[in-house]
Structure formats: C-alpha cells, structure tokens
C-alpha cells in the first residue's frame, strides 16, 4: 500500500470523524433503513383505518397482505434518501479545500495531485459503501425478523441492491469528475443535476433508454409483479445499461485523473 495515499485517506477520515459527519451519516442511514420495515408494519393499521372511512362511503375492498415484499418495496423507494444525504454531506470534500487553500502547503511539499484525487475518491467510496451497507443491513434484519424473505425474492433483492450500488458509484464518479472541473460546490451540484436531468430526458425515448445508466437507477422494477415469469428476461434487459454504467464510471475516473494533473489547487 502506498504510504502517502494511506496517510492521506487517514487524514480524510480524521476530518469526517472529528466533524461528526461520518457518524451522523451512518445514523441517518440506520434511521432511513428502519423506516422501511416500520412503514410495512404500519400499513395494515392504516389500511384498516381507511377502511372504516371507506365503508362509510360504501366502498369495500380486501386489505392487502403484508409480506417481506412490502418492506423491500419501501427499501427500493427510499434508496435515494441516503444517497442524496451522502452527496450533500460529503460532496464538498474537494471544493471546501480549494476554497480554504489548505492544499497549498501539501502540494508544495510534493503531495501529488493524483494522490489527493484518489485519496478523496476512496474515502467517498468507503463512506458511501458503509452507509449503504447499514441501510441494507437494517432493512434485511427487520424484514427477516418480522416476515422472512423467501429465496426467490431474496435473489432479486440482492440483484437490485447490487444494481443500485453500481448506479451510486456512477453518482460518486460524477461527483469526483465535476469536483476536478469546478472550484465551487454549487457548480458541482448544478452539473450533476444537469447530467442526471439529461439522463432522465433521454430515458423517455425507449430505444436510448435501454442503454442509459438511468435504467438501473430504479431497482424497484425488479420487484414488480409480472417479473416473476420474466425474471431472466429482465436481467438481460438490465445487462446492457449495467455494462454501460461500468464503462462510464471507469472513463470518468480516468478523465478526472488526467484533468487533476493540470488543475491549480491553491
């Protein structure tokens, strides 16, 4: 292991630990993860309440049975929250150093700019992975405790978790890339929103949508009814955007490394 890179990553973690950001982020992931089984658990109660009112209006329908699926559907629906919080809490780890001129003494001592880039990128990936694992772990633990997930469903859960993980790495790669390009965090955010917006717009054309990273951003699709018999087909459907996203991530990191060498960081 590169000694300087390791030192640099350790400095990044000291920062996020002492500022309280790391622990807060993990607690948030825990809290949001907890909301999934809670929502599932409370659904029958709310439905019954609704039914009392509906009955007054003369509408009668069967209450849905709550299973592990309900909890996992919530998991897929809320998966954006930890990612959004992550980007807002950790997204400025490049730009805040540009603004504070804290990198100047480091660079003039011979710290390579690529080491700065990779140290921060690795820190981002590690923190996000930890938060995502907490989010997934909490939902899994409670869902198993209350309902138990059958093997067939569990397979899909793993698939969608892995799929969204790759998508989240795409977000991290965008974050790193724009942090090399811009000096201000606002510029980074606007650029990211623009790219994701474009992804969404082009996603409306079915032909292009099949290859865009945005395709794997809605993991809940894998849980939808009707996919039972089309499961293998579905996985084939996601294979292309999966590979495209992977390639885009690699390209973004390579470009970031090249551009970082030319960047003025003081």
């Amino acid at each position, binding site marked *: 292991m590169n000694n300087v890179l390791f*030192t640099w990553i350790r400095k990044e973690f*000291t920062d996020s630990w002492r500022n309280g950001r790391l622990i807060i982020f993990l607690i948030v992931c825990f809290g949001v993860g907890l909301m999934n089984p809670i929502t599932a658990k409370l659904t029958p109660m709310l439905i019954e309440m609704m039914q009392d009112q509906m009955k007054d209006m003369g509408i009668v329908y069967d209450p849905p049975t709550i299973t592990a699926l309900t909890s996992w559907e919530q998991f897929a629906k809320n998966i954006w929250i930890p990612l959004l919080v992550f980007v807002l809490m950790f997204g400025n780890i490049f730009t805040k150093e540009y603004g*504070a*001129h*804290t990198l100047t*003494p480091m660079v003039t001592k011979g710290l390579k700019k690529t080491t700065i880039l990779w140290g921060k990128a690795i820190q981002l990936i590690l923190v996000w992975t930890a938060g995502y694992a907490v989010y997934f772990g909490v939902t899994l633990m409670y869902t198993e405790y209350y309902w138990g997930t059958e093997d067939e469903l569990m397979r899909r859960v793993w698939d969608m978790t892995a799929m969204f993980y790759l998508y989240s790495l795409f977000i991290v790669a965008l974050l790193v890339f724009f942090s090399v390009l811009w000096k201000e965090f606002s510029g980074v955010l606007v650029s990211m929103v623009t790219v994701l917006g474009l992804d969404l717009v082009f996603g409306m054309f079915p032909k292009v949508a099949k290859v865009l990273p945005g395709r794997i951003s809605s993991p809940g699709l894998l849980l939808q009814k009707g996919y039972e018999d089309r499961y293998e087909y579905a996985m084939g459907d996601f294979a292309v955007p999966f590979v495209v996203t992977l390639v885009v991530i690699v390209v973004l990191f390579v470009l970031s490394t090249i551009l970082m060498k030319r960047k003025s960081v*003081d």
Partner: protein
Amino acid sequence: MLSIEGLYKRFGDKEVIKGLNFHVPKNSIYGFVGTNGAGKTTTMKMVLGLLEADAGTILVDGERVTYGNTDTNRGIGYLPDVPEFYSFLTTREYLALCGRICGLSDKTTKTRAEELLERVGLAGEKHRIKGFSRGMKQRLGIAQALINRPKLLICDEPTSALDPVGRKEILDILKEVREETTVLFSTHILSDVERICTDVAFLKDGVIALEGTIDQVRTLKSNGEFLVETLNPAGTEALCAHFPNAKVSGEQVVTLTGNDDEMLKVMAFLSGNNIPVLKVERAETSLEDLFMEVTKHE
C-alpha cells in the same frame, strides 16, 4: 540558490511579469520588495510550480522548475501569505502529516517537529489548530515549511498582517534559520528588510528595478551629503558664513556636500571656533526613500 531569467506571465491581456531576472545567493535573506499587486505572489507561485510561466527559466539549486508536480519542491519550504491548515488536527498531528508527505520517517518527523515547535514558540500548544490567531498560524506555517530542512524557504508577506510583537517574533525566527537555509521573502514593509535582509530586490512593473546587497543599495544613492546640527542659531550662522556650499535645511541644521576631507575640515572649523554641536552625521538614503524613488510613477 535560486535564479530566475527572462520570466514572463500574463493573466488575460494584462502582463504582470515582464522579463524578470534575479538571483538569490546561498545563505542570504533576500527581501523581495514591491507594492501590492506588483507580482510578488505570482513570481513565488511560479517558483513553486503552482502557476505556469509563459516564458523564462527558473532554477532552484541548478534544477529546473516545471509546472505541476515539480521535483524542485522537495528542497523548498513555502509559507503562503495567509497560511491555512486543517483545523481539526493538532499542531503535532499536522506536522506529522507534513513529514509523511515529505517522505520522512515517523521518528525523524517527531524529533524535528518538537524542535521546530520549540523554535516557533508553539511547543505548549496541545489543542487543535481551530481557533489559532493569525500570528500562531504564521508561526506554525514556518514550522511546517521547515519540517524537511529545505534548502530554500519562501515566505509570502510573512509579517504584513501581524502586530509589532508578532512581526518581531517572525523576523527573529527568519534571522535564526539563515544558518541552515536560504530565505526569500516578499514584503512591502521596508523596516523589515532593513532589520534582517542581506540582499534586496525592488520589483516594479513586472521587472526588477534595483537589486543588490543591502550595503550596495544603500551607498548607491548616498551622494556625499552630511548634516551638522548645532546647539544654537549662532553656530548655524557661522557655518553658513564660512562654507559657501552650506545650506540651512532645518532649525539649526546645516547640510553640506563633500568627501571625507571636507567633513574633517568642517569638524576642525567647529572645534576651532568653539561651536557647540548636537551631531554631525552622514546622510544615508533610507530604503524607504529609495523605494519611493524607484517605484514613483514618471
């Protein structure tokens, strides 16, 4: 130690550095003087490879500086004008980080850090850098710049934002480190230069207007004037009556021009006629006057 030749730099359509040449001798304390916006910081950043020069060569100890990750930085310590450090670390942790980046062993860094903290007067500081005053940050800045025993220490206006006490502390530290390194520091405070520098260069309009050792620069402008201040008006009158080139230049002050012989004659006249005097002194041009003259706009 450092030599710059034919350096050019423009920002947009504004040419800031226009063919700069200067040489910093080994073990000197080199004062780099110029008004605000004269291009001092720009020059220093080019020496550090933080900015790309449009033309020209910069040699540090014979090695050429390139933009980006320049190897010459291993031999340079840099103190920025407003040094900023990681506020969540303590001074010792920060110096340990610097040492590791320089590739020093942890043991070397530790002893060196203690030695430097002692020297800059921060040895008792156990808290995080958050909440340090300007002066403390400036002193820590010197410590971090010296951690790897650089051959050249570059300080960008190290004293301009400090009070007189803080300024004196920094100047004393710079004077002390001269034994182990060469110091280049930029400033617009002339008294700082007079206090510690051995060499000086005036930067004006992107070129060096004047360069040399302090003594050279001082005598350059001295044109053999000397002053006599008498105790009473009668003495002044007597002097003026006897020496035709004497000019009254103040209350009971007479300015005379001439070489050492002339000065001795004046002194003989004074003692021969029992004229009481307050002082007889050579008029030395102060750096302040010199600077004003060099940088004034035609």
